[in-house]
């Protein structure tokens, strides 16, 4: 073989590895998800359906209507979540982006928590329960304690993280001790915590706000305990985003760089080998659930201390469940979860502007569900697009080593 042929082969192999890789599949899944959403928008569109009646004489009507509704819909999503070109000032034009960041904040933080359990081979459906546990602690500190500026906020954030962590640790303990499945435990604790929270918010002596009668609602968080605005008062984005980004970095360090994460991953891939290597698998499960919940606790802090309206039982905003889709789409890696959180945050931010033009933003829920469904079945995506099977070669790895001038062993 000539050198050129070798290079050609290497290139082809590298292409194959890229096509077989997770990134390609993720991108295709996202595109497919948008396609599914488009289909729903089209088939629920009146003009399109009316046009179908005379489709064969004037197909243009239907197709035009279809194009119109899809471009309107996704156009509104873009306007509502990234940049609003119609706004008079630049400040207003980029407000959508800040809203995306604001709404992505708890998704990213909680997504990291769920992602962590995936890496350990566990399945934490209890984001909601852990979130609420954190909110109980944070609400108590934010409404019943008086502390100076900044310190109050810090204490409240830490309280949220502690509250969530305790919940996670309890579930981990029950699993490790009794062998009960964490899926059922976490689902049940979601309900228990929700009703407990409602009860506490209904009791004047516990968390209910002063002067509120009957309704389960707390006082607004004290001024000092609120997360400060990040970009001034004209945007509602807070320092919560910074907390979430810090969480991303911590998660990355924990899973990729620390010895703790090394053992967590070891248990996730092969608990038998971990046991043989001296790792206490049960203790690792407890640790994993606690750490996972700690990340969820950051989301709890954000939900409690993000705005100065009193929390209610529905303040958890279903983040615990959305976080599962975030973790799945993000492949449980730090950058992946960050991107996935931003995408689904954008969905939330863009919803109102879709509503305005008469397209139900619920279509984004379909897009979200479809994306993760495709993600969950790699063979399906491979079959749909004729992608190669996972490669046994490691040309890319070699290339990477060469770029970073590493010694390449034979």
């Amino acid at each position, binding site marked *: 073989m000539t050198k050129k042929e070798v290079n050609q082969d290497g290139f082809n192999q590298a292409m194959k590895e890229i096509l077989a890789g997770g990134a390609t599949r993720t991108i295709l899944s996202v595109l497919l998800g948008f396609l599914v959403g488009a289909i729903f928008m089209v088939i629920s569109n009146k003009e399109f359906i009316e046009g179908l009646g005379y489709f064969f004489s004037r197909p243009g009507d239907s197709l035009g209507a279809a194009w119109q509704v899809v471009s309107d819909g996704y156009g509104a999503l873009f306007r509502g979540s990234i940049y609003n070109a119609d706004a008079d000032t630049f400040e207003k034009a980029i407000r959508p982006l800040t809203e995306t960041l604001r709404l992505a904040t708890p998704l990213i933080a909680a997504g990291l928590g769920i992602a962590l359990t995936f890496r350990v081979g566990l399945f934490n459906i209890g984001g909601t329960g852990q979130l609420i546990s954190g909110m109980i602690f944070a609400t108590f500190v934010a409404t019943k304690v008086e502390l100076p500026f900044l310190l109050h906020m810090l204490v409240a954030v830490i309280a949220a993280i502690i509250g969530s962590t305790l919940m996670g640790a309890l579930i981990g303990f029950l699993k490790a001790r009794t062998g009960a499945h964490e899926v059922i435990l976490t689902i049940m604790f979601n309900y228990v915590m929700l009703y407990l929270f409602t009860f506490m918010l209904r009791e004047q002596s516990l968390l209910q706000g002063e002067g509120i009668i009957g309704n389960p609602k707390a006082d607004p968080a004290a001024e000092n305990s609120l997360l400060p605005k990040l970009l001034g008062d004209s945007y509602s984005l807070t320092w919560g985003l910074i907390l979430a980004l810090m969480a991303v970095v911590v998660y990355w360090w924990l899973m990729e*760089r*620390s*010895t*703790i994460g*090394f*053992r967590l*991953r*070891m248990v996730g*891939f*092969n608990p*038998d*080998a*971990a*046991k*043989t*290597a*001296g*790792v*206490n698998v049960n203790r690792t499960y407890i640790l994993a659930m606690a750490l996972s919940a700690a990340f969820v606790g950051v989301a709890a802090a954000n939900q409690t201390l993000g705005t100065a309206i009193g929390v209610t039982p529905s303040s958890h905003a279903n983040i615990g469940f959305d976080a599962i889709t975030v973790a799945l789409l993000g492949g449980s890696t730090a950058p992946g979860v960050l991107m996935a959180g931003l995408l689904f945050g954008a969905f939330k931010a863009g919803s109102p502007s879709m509503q305005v033009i008469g397209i139900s933003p619920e279509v984004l829920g379909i897009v979200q569900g479809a994306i993760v469904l495709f993600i969950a079945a790699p063979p399906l995506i491979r079959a749909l697009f004729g992608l190669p099977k996972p490669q*046994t070669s*490691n040309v890319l*790895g*070699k290339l*990477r*080593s060469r770029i970073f001038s*590493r*010694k*390449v*062993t*034979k």
Partner: protein
Amino acid sequence: MKLELRGITKRFGTLVANASIDLTVNPGEIHALLGENGAGKSTLMNVLYGLYTADEGEILLDDKVQKFSGPGDAMAAGIGMVHQHFMLIPVFTVAENVALGNEPTGVLGTLKLAEARQRVLDISKQFGFNVDPDALIEDLPVGIQQRVEIIKALSRDAKVLVLDEPTAVLTPQETDELMDIMRQLAKNGTSIVFITHKLREVKEVADKITVIRLGKVVGSASPSASTNELASLMVGREVDLKVDKAPAQPKDLVLSVDAVSVLDDRSQRAVDSVSFEVRAGEILAIAGVQGNGQTELAEALLGLRPVIKGSGTIKLGDKDITEASVKQVLEAGVAFVPEDRKKDGLVAEFSVAENLMLDSSFKSRFTKGLNINLKARRKIADDLVQEFDVRTQTSDSPAGKLSGGNQQKVVVARELSREVKLLVASQPTRGVDVGSIEFIHERIVAERDEGKAVVLVSTELDEVLALADRIAVMYRGKIVGIVPPTTSRSDLGKLMAGVSA
């Protein structure tokens, strides 16, 4: 029914599990298929039972060629099989298990359990099995479960009954009872294929013996042949696996095991009051047929399996590690090469480098505080890959993508590169190519010469003879003798069969 296999060949990739095997079993004959672990006996029987399709060759029943596409076909043709791992549903009753797949039904597909129960009782009575059709399988001792398997086969009118290592899980009394049953069945005209590696049993019950080694038929014998003769047929000529080594220079006492007993997963006493000592600078091999408690003993040494409370002690130097956790044992200076590297030794998804730090993740040369010291790890990994000749593209490649031999080299490299006093190596060369075997053997001897104590657990007689300074033979959970490596193969074979020398 007469069973005939002609030229059966079965390949898995490049591995030839069965090479053109011929076998004839006459009606009413007990035909023993004798061979070591991995000789290809079970593959052959799975071909016969329709679980695998042969690449070449044909199966004949009463001189008619058969085509089996699944176990259902084989059963319909009159072949019954008692698998080594029982195919019984633990939470079902005996009658339900016997009926499954062959259910007597009434209207609307209702089960006629009474009929199934009667079937069990009939067969049970005919052969004196004494099996309660209403008992749950999980409540039954293993010996009775095996009878249920036999009833299951007979209730489907099996004319050829294959018993795959049936005595591996039985107590001596249960084994004797099984042999009586086999004789009875044969007397009633059932042909029996008896797969085993236990010489005593073969001599006792078989009418005819076929010996298989490395996927080929290497000979046949009559049960009157001497144990020696059978053993040498089964084990084969001495493969030249000589390792150059000087005589051992044993020094200080490193490991002392005193009257240790251990339970297996089924809560049976797998290791029964075992005692031995190993000194620095010597290799003690624990030889024996698979399943005589070696695995459990090795796991107990590492702390993976608890020693029965109060039964005995394990000491490393002066330190009592009887109840220590795995982590404590590893930190006390023990290296461990597990028997099943895929399950216990490696994380397939991890890179070679990550696998090299698998059991040094707490505080070691791979770590810096809570951080993994990536620079150090890369350096150590690259060096070890070089030193142990691991054939991998880079030390970042996933370990799962390496060949078996190279995976094992990763495990060995990891364990030998730690500072330890004792190396426990279980089946260190199982499923490894010849080149790697040689390499691993040399490394183990080098460890000894550096003054470490080595416990080698191996069912391969060749390996034991090549490496050991002393040989402890285990049989039914006990050490039946500790002998020098100059002991002859036939004497070792007898010890492994439980005959005291």
